[in-house]
C-alpha cells in the first residue's frame, strides 16, 4: 500500500506529521514533504489516522 498526497489541497498544516512522522514532514517553507510512500502492515494504523485527521482531505491510501 502507498500513501498519496494531493498537493493542490494540502496547506501544510502538519497534523499528518504529528501522527506519522516517518512519512510526513513539513519543511521550512511550510510545504509538505513525503519522506516515504510504501506502508507496511505495522505502519498502517498510524498512516490511516493521519489520513483521517488531515483538515484538507489531501491524503489517500492506495493499494
Amino acid at each position, binding site marked *: 500500500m502507498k500513501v498519496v498526497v494531493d498537493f493542490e489541497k494540502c496547506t501544510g498544516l502538519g497534523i499528518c506529521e*504529528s501522527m506519522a512522522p516517518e512519512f510526513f514532514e513539513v519543511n521550512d517553507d511550510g510545504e509538505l514533504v513525503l519522506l516515504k510512500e510504501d506502508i507496511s502492515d505495522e505502519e498502517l494504523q498510524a498512516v490511516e489516522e493521519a489520513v483521517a485527521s488531515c483538515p484538507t482531505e489531501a491524503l489517500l491510501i492506495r493499494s
Partner: protein
Amino acid sequence: MTVRSLVVVGASLAGLRAVEAARKAGFDGSITLVGAEPHLPYDRPPLSKGFLAASDDEPPHFRTEEVLRDELGVELVLGEAATGLDTDRRVVRVGDREIGYDALVIATGCRLRTLPGTEHLAGVHGLRTLDDSVAVRSALEAGARTVVIGAGFIGSEVAAGATRRGLDVTIVEALPTPLVRATGTAMGAAIAGLHERNGTRLLCGTGVAAVEGDGRVERVVLDDGTVIPADLVVVGIGVVPSTQWLEGSGVTIDDGIVCDETLWTGVPRVYAAGDVASWVNPVFGTRQRMENWTAAAEQGAAAARNAIAPDQAKPYATVPYFWSDWYDDRIQFVGVPDADEVLLVDGDTETAGRWVALYRRGDRLVGALTVNGQTEIMKYRVMIAKGASWDDALAHAERRRELALVKAGAAAGA
C-alpha cells in the same frame, strides 16, 4: 444492548465526522443528522481566511447532499434546531417532531457572544456562520471602514484580511494584552505585534462605550472618549457553548457538556463532541473544552464509535492543536498554555518573522508556539504526547538550531 438508531444533533464538523465514523465502523442502522442551519455541513476556518478574501469562492461544504443521503445513508433534518431532549423516553424534540434514538451524539458547538445594544444596527456582525462570512465579505468588498472588537484569532484574521484589501482597520481590545488565554501573556503580546508590523491599528486596554448610528453603524466610541468612524463592525468577543436546548434534560452542563474521558455524558447512550464538549483529556489529566478544528473532528469520530459500542468505549486523548493565518504569517500552537515558564528557543519576537517558544509545567514540556515555524511545531506535538521532559525539549531545540545553522551555511556556500 444493540444500537439500531443513531441521532446526531449539530450538523457541522463534529456532527459530520460522527456520521462518517459510525459508517466506517460498520454501523448499518439508521442515522439522523439534525442541524439548526439550513446549510449542509461546511468548514468554518476558511470563513475568516480564504473564503473571506476571494469573492468568487464557493461555500466550503464538506460533502454534497447526494453523498450524505445516498453513500452515507443519512436522514438530514436541516434548518430547524433541536429544542429538547428526553433521556427517559430517548427522544430528541425538533419543533413538534420527536426523533427516537438508541444512541445520541450531541455536537451543537458554540454560538457567538453578542455586544448588548447593537442588535438593531445594520453593519454589525459576528463571524461564526457562512451567512456571517458572506455579510462581512460584501461589506469589505464595498470598502468599509472596519472596526474589529476583540483581538482574538478570528477577529485578527478578519482585520488582517481587511488590511490586505487596503481598508482602514482598527482592532479594539478591552484587555491590556490579547490572546492571553490561548497563548499566555508574553506570547500574546508578541503575536499582537504582527498587527503593528503590518500596519493594522491595535488599541488595547480600552473598552467600547457605545456603537452608534442611525439604523446603520456609523461610529464606535471607546471608554476613553476616542471616536472611530466605521461602516463595518465585526464583534469577536468569544463564544458560548450551545446548550440552552438541553435544560432540564439531566445532562450536566458546566461551561459545555460535562463528559468523562470517553466523551460520555453520564446519561446512558448520550455522548458529546466538539466545541460543546468538556471532557477529561488523559494527556494532561485535566478537564478541557476545545474550540479548535482538530479536536472537533477527532471527537466527533470518537464519540460516535463509543456511542454505537459503549461496552468497548475508548478514552479520547489529544495534544490540542490550533493554527491561525494572519498576513503572510502562520501561527501554530500545540499543547496547553498554562505554564510555569515560557521560553523563546529560536528566533526573535521583535524583528524576526519566525520564532519558536516552549511552555514548561513542572519538569514537563506542555506546549509549543511557533510563528512561521511549520517545520518545527509538529515535532513538539509528538514530544508532548509522549510526555517529554523539559530537558529533552531544550536539547531537541538546541539540535534543531544547530541543524538550521548548518543548512543556512550550506545554502550560503552553494
